[in-house]
């Protein structure tokens, strides 16, 4: 075991896969010589050389196009889009090309590629460098969507994403880069489509993703201290494929469902989970499922305003307590 930051986990996950398979190549802006704008890819150029770890121009369409063309001809590229907000300038490649070409050709071509990016708020970057766009990605048929909450998962899910034969959008959370935990040495390989129960409690089921996982865990502590409410926290980890069985069974145990989402309210991922749970476990629910989300607004930059916008442990705990106790 050793202590690993989420930031270092990004490079460790990529390096693990590049060591194993020389078809894995990595490209993006400032990823090679500079080691990434968040220093998440330090050391990769030195270890794997300039043919496998490549700096690109500021050309997001060219980056994803290169990844797509390479994936369909035998490589397994990892492409970095620096901030997830920048998907907006290369969305054609994501939404029309990479995601749909296998289906349109009825399986003639495959796209074993990973698009990793920095997603989410908390760094006071304002409306165009802070968005949580996991719900954009999950709305496109043909894309797998992963958002790790812990350093261990950054490594294990990256391995699963690289080894998957389908395109995976991999959302690293910018506000988690400094977080750390003890992780096993050696290879870590996880599985896509498996949620994890991070905390067990019999009273309330909270379902969260990425940076909302530690916030939900903190909320669970508040609920226990202040109200004696024991909350289960489910880390979804993978929106596509979605582990509905774990979610459904955790909802059955408490009769409640609270989703904690960083994405803006409309069409957030939690709406889909609420819809599945109400359709399939209506009788198990003691009350209406409740979504705790960022409001449907662009994100502001000032500390105090951004803090108001995102779900906080306080808001999560108060919402759960109010629903349970009235």
């Amino acid at each position, binding site marked *: 075991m050793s202590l690993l930051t989420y930031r270092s986990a990004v490079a460790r996950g990529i390096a693990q896969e590049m060591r194993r398979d020389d078809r894995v190549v990595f490209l993006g802006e400032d990823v090679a010589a500079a080691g990434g704008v968040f220093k998440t890819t330090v050391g990769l150029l030195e270890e794997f050389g300039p043919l496998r770890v490549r700096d690109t121009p500021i050309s997001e369409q*060219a980056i994803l196009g290169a990844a797509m063309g390479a994936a369909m001809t035998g490589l397994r590229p990892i492409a970095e889009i620096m901030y997830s907000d920048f998907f907006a300038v290369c969305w054609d490649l994501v939404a029309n090309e990479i995601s749909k070409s296998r289906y349109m050709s009825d399986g003639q071509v495959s796209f074993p590629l990973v698009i990793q990016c920095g997603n989410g708020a908390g760094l006071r970057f304002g409306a165009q460098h802070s968005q949580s766009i996991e719900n954009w990605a999950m709305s496109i048929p043909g894309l797998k969507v992963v958002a790790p909450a812990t350093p261990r998962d950054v490594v294990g899910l990256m391995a699963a994403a690289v080894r998957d034969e389908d395109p995976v959008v991999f959302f690293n959370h910018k506000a988690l880069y400094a977080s750390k935990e003890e992780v096993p040495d050696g290879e870590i390989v996880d599985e896509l489509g498996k949620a994890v129960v991070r905390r067990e409690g019999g009273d309330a089921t909270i379902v969260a993703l990425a940076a909302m996982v530690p916030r939900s865990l903190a909320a669970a502590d508040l609920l226990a201290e202040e109200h004696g409410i024991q909350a289960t926290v489910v880390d979804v980890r993978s929106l596509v494929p979605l582990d509905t069985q774990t979610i459904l069974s955790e909802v059955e145990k408490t009769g409640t469902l609270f989703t904690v989402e960083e994405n803006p309210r409309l069409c957030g991922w939690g709406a889909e989970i609420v819809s599945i749970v109400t359709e399939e476990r209506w009788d198990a629910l003691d009350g209406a499922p409740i979504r705790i989300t960022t409001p449907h607004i662009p994100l502001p930059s000032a500390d105090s305003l951004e803090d108001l916008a995102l779900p906080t442990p306080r808001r999560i705990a108060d919402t759960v307590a109010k629903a349970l106790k009235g």
Partner: protein
Amino acid sequence: MTEVQSSSEISEELGISLYRSMSTARQFEKRAYDLFMQNLVKGTTHLGIGQEAVASGVAEAMADGDYTFVTYRGHNHLVARGTPLAPLMAELLGRDNGLMHGKGGSMHLIDAERGVLGSYAIIGAQLVIANGAAWSAQYRGSGQVTVCFFGDGATNIGAFHEALNFAVIWNLPVVFVCENNLYMEYTKTDTITAVEHPAADRAAGYNLPRIVIDGNDVEEVYLTAKKAVDLARAGGGPSIIEAVTYRHGGHSRADPAKYRDPAEVAEWLEKDPLPAYRARLIARGVDPSVFEKIDAEIGVEVDAATEEAKAGEWPKPERLYTNVWADGGAEWRN
């Protein structure tokens, strides 16, 4: 226009092969148009009738295993790379025996077996994707060359510019071929473009030579493409070729193309690449009966492909849920 000396470099056999390729594309697309008018081909088609010399000339310069990327106006390119006509026609008809089992249609044709890695219907996308195939070939050291076609209108979209810069800085084995048919949909491209030659006049901005050729002269196309393909294969990096041509019909479907000056259309019909090339080969001594025979053979082939396509079943309902994912299925949850 770049001067290319032709006759000495083109054997009679090669000339006949070029003619056959163009004539196959022409007859195939004429039939596709008829079937569209009979409402057997649904949705839309974009025909390359009049532009065959570009498709056939470039394809002839490529090797087996090379990659082709094209636009929604791509039937002629698949024909030129050897895609069998029946599955191609069946795909246009939306049948289960189609190249993609009816899931792609005219605008999205892929024939991976023959290196045609796709027809792209969102303007410009194929240029950046072609770079990826070229990068992969470079990385694997396979010697494969990628050729990417696009229209004159596509030179005004960002992806075109991103792709050219990227191909040059990575020295990719890719050849970009602009089929300049003077129009983007219903608008003349020179009325909405800052330069006269939309592709070639941009080349200098990417440190590439300016190459404009007569896209209706199949030998000029072949010889120019051969140089560029050979250069790419030898590690000399990308090229961009602008081939000036003309579509005989409308942009798509049953577009009557009323926005074009009839005198302009008449002038370009005079420059139809097929009769022009036939006449050239006859002048070089090929017996005219050779072409009659080839055309008749292709007619039989196109008839047979049409019958086979029409006899195809509708796609099985199960196809709706196949091949979203590499495991063959469409499941997104457990």
